[in-house]
């Protein structure tokens, strides 16, 4: 079962993401799937539900571009702190560009829902959320929590339902052509989220030989048997970071908050950075080489151990 799954982002999104589907996007700080989200916007997909532990400006862009009807997440901030992002606000408060359902989960609720999906079981128990409106509220919008009585202790405990997205996309440090994908540094919800998905697209900063994968197999977060497409997409996580590759573009993120506050500025931003470019390479051209040079990570090569026997 040795297959070359290399694809462009355009082909991969075209083939594996469809209107009305539930889409998981990976990355909690490290490896946020920005490039994939931009291609989804360019292909003008409709009525998606997107899920991810923290939505941030990734979800804000999808909302502003009108491709999503529902977000399942625990927060959707602007870069400068716990303030709602502007497109989220416009959609929720004014229905611009469309009415949006914000299926708000607590961070650990959504993590355990991904974990249930990962484990192939219908629910997971958690001790938080009881007594809050987070427990009850999502009932009006889809997902909901419930309580069961523990047959061993007799106590009542919350359970949250499995999430198994139709398709998931992650941006990782490296992968081989068959889709064995490795990520290091912070993982957040990415490993469990992506393995809960029915179809999987891996976007990687580098494509490496399988021999490199096998040098530290603990870094693999999803393996080839589950992966449908592999995209070589350097800088695909910008303006987020990728450990060992590039740092967060703080200036760009700050400017995003400034440049999307008004709807007409957002429309300009959308065209400049997403719909007005053909692919990630053109986006990087606008960003410019100086910026890339500035963001590029320094070397801190470490973590080797003896695997001998």
């Amino acid at each position, binding site marked *: 079962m040795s297959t070359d799954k290399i694809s462009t982002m355009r082909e991969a999104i075209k083939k594996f993401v469809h209107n009305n589907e539930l889409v998981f996007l990976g990355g909690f700080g490290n490896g946020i799937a920005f490039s994939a989200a931009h291609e989804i916007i360019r292909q003008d997909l409709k009525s998606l539900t997107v899920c991810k532990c923290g939505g941030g400006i990734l979800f804000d862009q999808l909302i502003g571009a009108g491709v999503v009807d529902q977000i399942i*997440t625990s*927060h959707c901030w602007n870069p400068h702190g716990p303030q*709602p992002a502007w497109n989220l606000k416009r959609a929720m408060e004014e229905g611009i560009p469309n009415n949006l359902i914000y299926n708000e989960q607590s961070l650990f609720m959504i993590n355990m829902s991904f974990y249930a999906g990962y484990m192939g079981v219908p629910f997971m128990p958690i001790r938080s959320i009881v007594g809050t409106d*987070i427990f009850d*509220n999502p009932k009006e919008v889809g997902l909901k929590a419930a309580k069961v009585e523990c047959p061993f202790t007799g106590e009542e405990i919350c359970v949250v339902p499995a999430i198994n997205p139709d398709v998931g996309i992650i941006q990782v440090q490296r992968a081989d052509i068959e889709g064995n994908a490795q990520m290091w540094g912070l*993982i957040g919800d990415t490993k469990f989220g992506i393995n809960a998905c029915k179809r999987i697209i891996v976007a990687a900063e580098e494509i490496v030989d399988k021999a490199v994968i096998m040098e530290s197999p603990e870094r693999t977060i999803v393996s080839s048997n589950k992966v449908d497409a592999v995209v070589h997409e350097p800088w695909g996580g910008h303006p987020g970071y990728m450990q060992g590759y590039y740092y967060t573009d703080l200036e760009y993120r700050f400017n995003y908050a400034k440049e999307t506050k008004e709807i007409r500025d957002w429309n300009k931003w959308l065209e400049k950075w997403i719909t007005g470019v053909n692919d990630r390479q053109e986006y990087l051209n606008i960003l410019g080489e100086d910026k890339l040079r500035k963001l590029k990570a320094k070397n*801190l090569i470490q973590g080797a151990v003896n695997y001998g026997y």
Partner: protein
Amino acid sequence: MVIEEENYCKEYTGFEMMLVSACRQIRHDDVVFNAFHWPFLVVHMAKLLRFPNLFTVMEVGLSQNEVPKPDKMPYSIVDPVLVPNSVFVGDSIDALSILQRGEITLAFLSTSIIDKYGNGNTTVIGPYKKPIYRLPGGGGATEIAGLANRLIWLLDDHSKYRFVEKLDFITDPGYLNGYDSRIKAGYPLNSGPEAIITPLCIMRFDPFTKEAYLDALHPNATIEQVKEETGWNLKIADEVRDIKPPTMREIEICRKTMKDAIDQYYILKPEWTKYLEK
């Protein structure tokens, strides 16, 4: 924590006083959940000031117990500089497990709006599906508030719009409806809000009713001012304690921390906020 009497600072803001006052609540053997926003700055200060080996946990899935030695201040609790300065890196569920096993002794949290039972709302003002004002969402605050042994709220704006009788939406569980309602809901016995720290004061919670009351005043604040700025009929301790001003050392670390945070856009410069507020 003993403060050296001779070295108090004269000029400082209420925001600085809030951070310093929060920092003084930490004990050397605390296992601290290190949350985004002001809590992160408090923990950073505590490591530099008193407890270089404070054991701290972040929701993305890492644990640290060394003073941070990065060349830049983290821009967020997910900054890659944190990774090679951590003793453990896993995933978010690893961090949850520490909370859920009851091993977090102390957590700080910020929230948008708080009520008299120490519940927080960062979700919505108005109806959930058609909000008047949509707030960003709570993130991990729900479980941090639910499962840490001691929870300390940090509210940077002590006003009646932020301190209300009743919330439109409970995102973060405090004492719910007061009395034993939190325990009845199923949260651990040794958990729940311990204090609310603001630029003006420290509130604590009545052991029976679980309602917040004024316990101690920051310098220059008055009981009347605190009552005026609180959106419910705030109860006052029989003997309201006075809080010492920041020492020179505390304020130095506090300002250094804030400067580093501004350099990393963790805190915005005041002149930037005009672009960002609506």
